């Protein structure tokens, strides 16, 4: 199986995009991630990951509506492409394969 290149942070962003569905735009993705990861995430890192994955073909995007809060600028709504979804599935399979192959954790209390 050919391993597709996707980074850990990219994978998280990609999953967030799918979770958020029609609301998947930059600020919302960042907010969701901050809540789930319980840490602060910069606009730059989110945008950089989005653009990278768009280049790789895992994401597609289209302009959404403009709101007053955004100073009249349109949102960009991201959605996962089939390739992107396939990558996520692939990553999950690799992970579960590895989980299954791992011996149970031995907790040493001594």
């Amino acid at each position, binding site marked *: 199986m050919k391993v597709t290149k996707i980074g850990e942070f990219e994978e998280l962003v990609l999953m967030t995009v799918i979770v958020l569905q029609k609301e998947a735009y930059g600020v919302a993705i*960042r907010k969701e991630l901050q809540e789930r990861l319980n840490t602060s995430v910069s*606009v730059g890192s989110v*945008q950089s990951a989005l653009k990278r994955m768009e280049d790789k073909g895992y994401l597609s995007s289209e302009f959404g509506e403009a709101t007053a809060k955004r*100073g009249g600028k349109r*949102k960009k709504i991201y959605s996962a492409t089939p390739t992107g979804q396939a990558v996520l599935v692939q990553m999950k399979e690799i992970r579960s394969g590895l989980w299954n192959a791992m011996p149970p954790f031995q907790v040493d209390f001594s």
Partner: protein
Amino acid sequence: MQTPEHASPPRWPLALLRFFIRDQYLEEIEGDLEEVYFELLEEHSGRRARWLYTLEVIRLFRPNLVKKLLSPTHHIHLDMFKHNLTISLRSYWRQKSSFLINLIGLSTGLACFLLITLWIKDELSMDKFHTHDKQLYQVMEHIKGPNSIGTSTNTAGPVAATLAEEMPEVSIGVTARTKSINPNTLSVGDVNLKAKGLYATEDLFRLFSFELLAGSADQVLADPNSIVLSESLAKRLFERADVATGKSLELAHETALTVAGVFKDTPASSSLRFDYVLPFESWSRENTWVNEWRNSHPQAFVLLNEGTDIDQFNEKIAGYVERMTEGEDSHRQLFVRKFSDNYLYGGFENGVQSGGRIEYVRLFSLIALFILMIACINFMNLSTARATRRLKEIGVKKSMGATRASLISQYISESTLLAFLSCIVALGIVIAALPTFNLITNKELWISLDPYTIGFLVFTILGTGLLAGSYPALYLSSLKPILIIKGTLKSSWGEVLVRKGLVVVQFALSVILIVSVWVVYQQIQFTQNKHLGYDRDNVLIIEKEGKMETPEAAQTFLSELRRIPGVQGAASIDNTMTNSDWRTNSVEWPGKDPEDRTAFEIIQVDYDAIELLDMEMADGRTFSRAFGSDTTAIIFNEAAIRHMGLEDPVGMRLDMWGGTPEIIGVVKDFHYESLHEEVDPLIMYLGDRGRYLTVRVDGQRTKSTIAAIRNLYQEANPGFVLDYNFIDDEYAALYAAENRVSTLSRYFAGLAILISCLGLFGLAMFSAAQRQKEIGIRKVLGASYIQLIRLLSLDFTRMVGIAILIGLPISYYLLRNWLNTFAFSIDLHWYFFLGAGLLALLIAWLTVLLQMTQATRVNPVESLRNE
């Protein structure tokens, strides 16, 4: 909690964002950030929100979000540059001959230019290294004569000290004998050395920036029995410079001196160069006459306070000598001049500064520019001429939308690239030629790659590139593409005129150089060969030292000398025959104008000296042992008799120096100074205390005779080394500057002509190539070789002819001016000009012929076969 103040995100991070984020992401990211900002505002204070916002902006600096460093427009410039470079290199490669002509021409031109620049830079920096340069002045004298004003650096002994004492503007005054830096024998134990030194008063090292390695500037010259040595002299005497201080040495085997200090060798950029300094007092206490205001001998230097008005100061000191001599010497006017100006602007005419070395600097600057211009003209001519071959390229480029500016930049970059390559070659030539150049110019020049030089080189390359490339660039880029591609473009009349005009300028410059070199050479030959009124060949001059200074010892030595086979005569004399040295104005004759202060040159001669030098007598007789009364006899030269207006002078008695000597003879005028000077009135009187010995040796066996003299000298004068000069060498040295100019201008003129010929060769080659078909057809129709050559060279002959007509009058004017600086000069014969013109024409013809012969030899079949 939105306040108007925070209604929108801070401006400058936004501007930054807009500047660096890729345009296609800008709307989205800007919107996101704005949303984030308002969210931040809800949670934080305005200030903190702005700060966090700014931080977010900065963290957007990610490679995949920011603009590419080289935007598409940048790429075009880079690509065009690469393209131009390739085109240039290809065109060099394809047209190797014209490339080589350009490269050789331009690099030789640049090499000359660089060499001359180095020399000029050195000349201009002479004497400027002194820390006090701006305030360092030399006191000089204008001497009013009946008809003219003379100017001299000789001043009365007390001048410097008195000015320093009485004038508030003067802070330091130094008296020194800088004109008489004579060799003297210094000895430590068995080591005897000849070195040149000067006498100077205490503050020499405070006034001038000659660096002291040992001793303090205000102390080293305080003790009259001390000496200050140069580093290298100290090394030669004591083996190490740092141990010299405090040691003692002997001067001329008679005076014991203590070394008070050591100074760093005087730099090449100093016009004053000496190996040791003695306190002025040690000289003046034996020559007390120097302390009188009536006499003029040493040089005086002063340090003026900053902001001193020189004109006012000069007015103040003008009448100083008159006051100090109680009105007696009203003709001597003091004035000051910047010391460092004296080197370049040393000439004075009738009390006004005129000429000096600066004239040579100007001359060579002109030559440098001429040569560079000639080389640039080559490039211009060849590239416009060659352009016909590249017209298609230009046409296509223009049709494709190339702008005029881009074509201009292409040609300029092509010429700049060539200038750059030439500059590298030129640097090689300069480095190879510097040792010889230094030998000729008597300098220690070296090229160092300091920022200043590199800047200058870059400037020269750009300047040359621009100069050489400007005309082709402007001309070629202006052509209409449709005409070019249709092939109907003919060289316009104007273009041909410019090209021809440039060749004319080139050859006019060459003609000027040819005539100048010829005339300068003739004049130098004239000065070297002129009969001076005495026979200067094979005559030695030896300065008396040690025992020789006592007349009896000198006489014994002379009589022993005469016994050496090969010595044809020996006598004592008080002049080196090449310098004016001692003058008096106290000669009285009947009918003398009381205002007449003409100074008569005085030479003390011994018996036989006049005969030895082979001077001719116009009247009367020379000094002779057969007449006992000759100790009170004098001999004048013709100039003196003319000046005094005496008729039948022999046998007359005149008042002079409180006696009434009898005129026993009149010697024919002879030159005792350079030919720049007229022969002035002169008196000779008999005496055996002259400072020199003069010996005539047999020219056939000079070497062995001098060896014998040296042995004899060592016996007669132990501890001293024989130091002699040939009068003819010394005489030649009077024209060292002219000789240098003559040699250098010969080289540079040769190069200039060579470069011009290269250009002409290139043009001939081009014109032959252009008329290849015509030549073929003419040959088929039976034209002879001679007819073809005549046809092809007519154009060039005409151009060179015009150049000669322009060049000759200019050279006449320039040379007339130069020859006027000599009191005795050659005439400007017509044949100098005719010869130079013919020579230029001949060179041009040979160059063209060389090319044309080849062109006319081509089989017509070859040139007509394809269309």
